[in-house]
C-alpha cells in the first residue's frame, strides 16, 4: 500500500487498525508448529572447521517450499560448526540474483541455491563458482553443470514411476482396471515429467488403462474443483494418482462430498495431512510418493562436507558426488510412522 500522510491517510489508518483490532485475536497460528524434518544423524557429526553457508530460496508460498526452508534452518542449527546466512525468499529472478551476489560479496564458504527459475539463475551460479565459492544447486537445476559443484534434487519422472508401479501392483489381478490422474499445474515441465513416468510404469500392466487426466493447480481450491469434475465424469474407476498432496486436500474433500470410496488413491510429495490420513486409514488415500523436502537438510550436509573438504559417509569417494537424485519412495500404512516427522504442512 502506498504511504499516506494526509489527514485522510490517518483516517484510513484508523479504519484499518480498528478492523485489525477486531481480528487480531484470530490471526495467530501457533499449533505446536514443529517443522517437518528428518532426524537421521548427519553423515559426519564430528565438529570440524567453521563453515558459513549462504542459502537462497524462492518465496515460501507453498507448503513444500516452506518445509525446504525449515529443513535447511534446522539442519544448520544441529551443527556447532555451521553458520547459516539465509536470504529473504523471492520469486523475482532479479531480486534473487541480487541476494546471491550479496552472499558472494560476503564471501560465504558454500552457497546453497534453490532458484526461482533454474535457467535464469545459471549466470549467477557461474559467477559464484568463478569466485571460488562452491554451489550446491537444490532441485531446480541450472542450465550448465559448470554453475554448480553438486546438484541434489527430487525425481519427477521417478515419482510417476513409483506411483504407477504401486498402483500397478495393487491392481495387477484386476481385469480391465481403470485408473485416473489428477495432475498438477500443466504449465510446468515437472508436471509433464510426472505424467510421463506414471504412463511408463502403467505400460507394464496391460490390464490397466488410464481413462482420464485433468490438471489442477497445486491448490486446494483447484484440487476440489477438478476432482469433483473427474468424479462426475468417471462413475467407476479403480485407482487415482494425485500429483500433489496440497491439492489432494481439495481432492479428498471432493471425494467425500461425492460420497465415493470405491477406489484407491495415491498422493504425491509427502504432506503431513496425507501421512496422517494414510496412518488412520479411514479414507481412499492409501499411499503417497515422496518428493522429499528433506533434500534441503541434505544440501546443508553436503555444503558442510564441501566446506570441510570431506566426502559423504558411507561412500568410498573422498569427494561428494556431482549430482544426487533422490528416490521417490512410496509411503503407505506399513512405513508411514517412519516418515511422519518429515511431513510438511
Amino acid at each position, binding site marked *: *500500500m502506498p504511504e*499516506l500522510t494526509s489527514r485522510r491517510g490517518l483516517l484510513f489508518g484508523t479504519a484499518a487498525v480498528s*478492523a485489525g483490532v477486531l481480528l487480531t485475536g484470530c490471526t*495467530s497460528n501457533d499449533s505446536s508448529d514443529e517443522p517437518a524434518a528428518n532426524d537421521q544423524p548427519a553423515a559426519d557429526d564430528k565438529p570440524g572447521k567453521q563453515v558459513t553457508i549462504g542459502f537462497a530460496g524462492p518465496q*515460501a508460498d507453498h507448503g513444500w517450499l516452506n518445509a525446504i526452508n525449515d529443513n535447511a534452518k534446522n539442519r544448520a542449527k544441529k551443527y556447532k560448526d555451521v553458520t547459516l546466512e539465509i536470504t529473504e525468499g523471492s520469486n523475482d529472478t532479479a531480486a534473487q540474483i541480487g541476494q546471491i551476489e550479496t552472499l558472494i560479496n560476503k564471501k560465504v564458504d558454500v552457497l546453497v541455491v534453490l532458484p526461482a527459475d533454474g535457467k535464469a539463475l545459471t549466470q549467477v551460479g557461474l559467477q559464484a563458482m568463478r569466485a571460488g565459492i562452491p554451489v550446491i544447486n537444490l532441485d531446480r537445476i541450472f542450465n550448465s553443470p559448470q554453475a554448480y559443484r553438486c546438484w541434489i534434487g527430487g525425481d519427477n519422472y521417478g515419482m510417476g514411476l513409483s506411483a504407477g508401479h504401486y498402483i500397478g501392483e495393487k491392481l495387477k489381478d484386476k481385469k480391465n482396471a481403470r485408473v485416473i490422474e489428477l495432475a498438477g499445474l*500443466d504449465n510446468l515441465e515437472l508436471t509433464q515429467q510426472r505424467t510421463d513416468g506414471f504412463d511408463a510404469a502403467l505400460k507394464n500392466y496391460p490390464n490397466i488403462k488410464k481413462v482420464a487426466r485433468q490438471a489442477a493447480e497445486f491448490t486446494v481450491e483447484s484440487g476440489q474443483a477438478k476432482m469433483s469434475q473427474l468424479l462426475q*465424469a468417471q462413475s467407476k474407476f479403480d485407482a487415482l494418482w494425485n500429483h500433489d498432496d*496440497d491439492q489432494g486436500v481439495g481432492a479428498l474433500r471432493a471425494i467425500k462430498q461425492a460420497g465415493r470410496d470405491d477406489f484407491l488413491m495415491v498422493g504425491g510429495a509427502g504432506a503431513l495431512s496425507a501421512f496422517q490420513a494414510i496412518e488412520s486409514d479411514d479414507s481412499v488415500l492409501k499411499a503417497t510418493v515422496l518428493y522429499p523436502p528433506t533434500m534441503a537438510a541434505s544440501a546443508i550436509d553436503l555444503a558442510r562436507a564441501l566446506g570441510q573438504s570431506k566426502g559423504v559417509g558411507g561412500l568410498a569417494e573422498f569427494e561428494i558426488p556431482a549430482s544426487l537424485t533422490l528416490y521417490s519412495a512410496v509411503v503407505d500404512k506399513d512405513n508411514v510412522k517412519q516418515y511422519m516427522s518429515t511431513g510438511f504442512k
Partner: protein
Amino acid sequence: MTQPVSPPRDDTPKLSPQAEPGSWRTVAARADVRTLSLLGVLAALILIGGITKPEEFLDTRNLQLVLTQASVIGVVTVGMTFVITSGGIDLSVGAIVALASVWATTVATQEYGFAGVLFTAVLVGVGCGLVNGMLIAYGAMVPFIATLAMLASARGLALQITDGKTQIVSIEGILELGERDSYVLGVPPLVMVFAVVTIIGWLVLNRTTFGRRTVAVGGNAEAARLAGIDVRRQRLYLYLLSGLCCGIAAFLLIVLSGSGQNTNGNLYELDAIAAAIIGGTLLSGGRGTITGSVLGVLIFTTITNIFALNNLQSDVQQIAKGAIIVAAVLVQRRTASTT
C-alpha cells in the same frame, strides 16, 4: 435577414419519427435480445454436453456440481457487476477472497467455531472493501491502481498469515455444509447462498435508489454530481459491497474446500470481469445486468464441466475460454447495433 416565427406547436425529434409506442418495446427487446443471446450460448453448450456425454452431463448430480462450482465466483461476480456498472473496476477480489479465507481459518479463529469463521471472513472482506473505497472515493485514487495495490497487499498478508501452509478446517458444522447430507430438496446450501445473493443483487441494482445511483455514477459521474448525488459516498459503498461479496465468497470457498489457503481465489478478478462483460455490463460503466453476469458465470462453469467430462486438457480449455469471450462480445455488439 430577419423574419417573424410563431411558436411552433411541437418539435418531434427528427431521428425517431415513429418513436412513440415503438421505442419502449425497442428498449425491452434489446435487453431481451442480449439475455436471449446468452441463453442461446448456454443452450448450445448444454446441447454439446448432452450429445458428447449424455449420461454424465444430463444428470442431477452434474447440475448440482456445476451450480456449486459456480457459486463462489458467482457471488464475487455479483459484487463486481456493481463496481463495473459504476464505471470502476476491482482487481483485488481474488486477493480479498484469499485473505478472508485464510484469516478465517487460522487455528485461533477456528476456536470461535462456525460463527467465528463466518464473521471473520465477512469482516475481512468488508474491511478490504472499505480501504479500497476510501482510497478511491476520498483519496481520489484511480480504481485500477487502488485495487491493484490491494491485490498485492492482501495476497502478501495472506501469505504471511499462512506461511504457504494449507489451513485445514476442523469445524464439523462448516464441513457438513459442503456435503451431500445438508442438501435441501437436492439444492446444495452453497447454491442457495449464490441464488439469494443473485436475487438480492438483482433487486438492489434494478429496484432501489442505490442501484439507480450506481448506474447514474457510471453513466455520467459529472451529471450525477450536478443532479445532487453524493458520488463519492456511492463509490465508497460500491467497493464495500464488492468486499462484502468477496467475504461471503471466501466463506463459501472454505465450506467447499474444507480449508483456507493463500493461493485461493487465483485470477478471480479476471474471471469475474470476463463474466460481467460477456453478460452485457459495459466496461465503461452506465449499464449493468446481474442476470447477464450470472449467465456469464454459468457459461464459463459449464464449459469447464463439459471439457472435464470429455477429458480435454487445460490448454484446450483456456483457448476455448478466450474464444468464447470474443465471440460473446461480438455477438452482443451486433445485436446491440442492429436493434
